[in-house]
């Protein structure tokens, strides 16, 4: 039980991530950080700031720009007892390292019949907005989630950023930890101390029998906003923040869909072949008869991310689109849906489409 003093600790997710790493480094001498920029003055969007001063360059390891090789090096070190945390400032950079991640990180435990372990955390950050463009904004969780042997975590709250990251570092397996850049700014209560969370799947973050909304990372925040606005309009929905995409636990979602009869899934990445397809498929397999209407998937359309914000409108699913879809599934009246959608649009209009918050002014 968190006590009163803990519930008052408000941190940004970036601070929560920094705190988790600090605690892990302090606790286990085998933990080390490796990434391009881990020691620099910007400290990976502040998530590694101060650590090199505290733990030294032997444990906060500045990395050459060589993602594949350094992933293999991290794996090799893990095989002899280290616990590396590797960091990529963009998910996109990890594309260079997939051979190491898919073959060596993911499979070595299995292939060795359990003799080897690869306790490796790979943090990677999804870029969005301010012209990040086609190769600095990809959210590739669908790809990682396809590979047995990997665990895939996408936190949405500061508390989860801390707790799930600690859980990932404690885990004996390779964990791909995908952070949305805009989540870094989110503030929330974070318990003090060493408080790892199990990597155990979805959490219900709103309740209701209207429809079931399933989302990850930033999309879980949009989904919660949507549910709140719908609730204001008199329609209550279940919202699940997936948190852990692999191993995939869908029981709570199945239970919910059985009750609500409606499903909206929101992908952070491309909809086609996205993570949401797996959720829809599992629901269709498990409780087809409970679906009162076709499930709805939201996600990125089938094209690369354009740099210009002029082509951005509607590119990312937003709370109003989620509210519209969920409201309809829940059988809300047009007036109710309208009320929720316009409230959300008003809210959104305060910040430009390519900024995480009004204070943001580039350059990345």
């Amino acid at each position, binding site marked *: 039980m968190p006590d009163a003093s803990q519930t008052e600790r408000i941190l940004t997710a970036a601070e929560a991530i920094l705190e988790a790493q600090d605690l892990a480094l302090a606790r286990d001498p085998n933990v080390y950080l490796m990434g391009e920029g881990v020691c620099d003055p910007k400290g990976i969007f502040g998530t590694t700031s101060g650590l090199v001063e505290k733990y030294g360059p032997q444990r906060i390891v500045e990395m050459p*720009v060589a993602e594949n090789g350094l992933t293999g090096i991290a794996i090799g070190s893990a095989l002899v007892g280290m616990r590396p945390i590797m960091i990529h400032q963009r998910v996109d950079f990890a594309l260079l390292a997939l051979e190491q991640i898919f073959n060596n990180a993911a499979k070595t435990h299995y292939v060795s019949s359990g003799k080897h372990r690869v306790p490796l955390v790979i943090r990677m950050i999804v870029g969005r907005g301010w012209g990040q463009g086609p190769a600095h904004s990809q959210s590739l969780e669908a790809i990682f989630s396809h590979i047995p042997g990997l665990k895939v975590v996408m936190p949405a709250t500061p508390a989860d950023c801390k707790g799930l990251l600690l859980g990932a570092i404690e885990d004996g397996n390779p964990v791909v930890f995908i952070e949305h850049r805009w989540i870094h700014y989110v503030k929330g209560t974070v318990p003090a101390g060493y408080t790892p969370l199990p990597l155990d799947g979805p959490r219900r973050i709103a309740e209701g029998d209207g429809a079931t909304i399933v989302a990850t990372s930033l999309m879980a925040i949009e989904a919660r906003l949507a549910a709140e606005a719908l609730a204001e309009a008199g329609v209550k929905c279940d919202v699940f923040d997936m948190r852990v995409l692999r191993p995939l636990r869908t029981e709570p979602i199945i239970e919910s869909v059985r009750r609500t009869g409606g499903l909206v899934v929101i992908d952070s990445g491309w909809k086609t072949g996205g993570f949401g397809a797996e959720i829809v498929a599992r629901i269709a397999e498990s409780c087809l008869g409970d679906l009162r209407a076709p499930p709805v998937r939201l996600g990125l359309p089938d*094209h690369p991310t354009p*740099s210009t*914000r002029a082509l951005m409108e509607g590119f990312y699913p937003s709370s109003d689109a989620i509210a519209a879809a969920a409201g309809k599934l829940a059988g809300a009246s047009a007036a109710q849906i309208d009320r929720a959608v316009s409230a959300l649009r008003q809210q959104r209009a305060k910040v430009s489409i390519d900024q995480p918050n009004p204070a943001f002014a*580039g350059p990345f």
Partner: protein
Amino acid sequence: MTPNPITESHARLEELVPLYSAMRRIRQIELEIAKRYAEQKMRCPVHLSIGQEAIAVGVCAALKRTDQAVSTHRCHAHYLAKGGDLNAMIAELYGKSTGCCGGRGGSMHLFDTGAGLLLSLPIVASSIPIGVGAAFGFARRGEPHVAVVFLGDASLEEGVWHESANFAARHKLPVIFVCENNLYSVYTHLDDRQPSRPLTKLAEAHGIRAQHVDGNDLSALLHVMSEMVDQARNSEGPSFLLADTYRWLEHCGPNYDNHIGYRTEDEFNAWRIRCPVERLRNKLEKSGLWNAAREDTLTARIQTEIDAAFRFAEDSPFPELRTAAEGVYA
């Protein structure tokens, strides 16, 4: 290791006057981008080349328009030096439909095949094999063009550089690798990323000729580059040009950042006085080829062009939202 000095005649100096103007133009454009960045109309990351202009200009001066270069995130100077359209570049930074990629690319994707800047890419080292592939295409198609690959010191850490160099050497392709060593990858010094040894050895290991040049000395760059271009055109295979230089502003964005702690004011100042633009101006002035009046005229002419380009960008329409999903497939 200090690069080989190059001596020059007055005649050669005269040839440098237009190249001086080209450098000055790039400097002035980049400064204007920096100045206007805070307006928040260029809503994309910008990696300015201030301090590194001599390389772009010296290298491209040795090329024909039909030769194709590829570049990186830090591509403004290469695009401009290779003859890219200023209006289309500024419009691209503004995200407008008149941008060289129709606004879809932003500042790290400046493409202009017509001018011979085949593409620039934001993933470190990702354009290196593309340039080698262009050279391979030229060779196979019997076209006389040369490919140039602009790359940063950090690119040399990516395996794909070596894979590309090996193939270029094995097939004696007409490609020239131009490495701008500005000592940093973002905020990380070369010494924190690589062992201490001459970077030229990385090319020589693949059997590629390498030359080390003062990257702030336009004349030296042009000289060495011209030789390499001749060799490439004569089917003598690839070369590697290592050019030492320094980035004045922050890695990404419009500001000076010597105060944030990753480099010293002293280091910056030591490079500041080696400004490639001032150095060439001094030389030209000493030889009577340049003076304050010409400088003022040049400044004014460039500013007119710049103002027009920004006006063009501002006045240009954004791409229409309905086009967002178009053109995924040819």
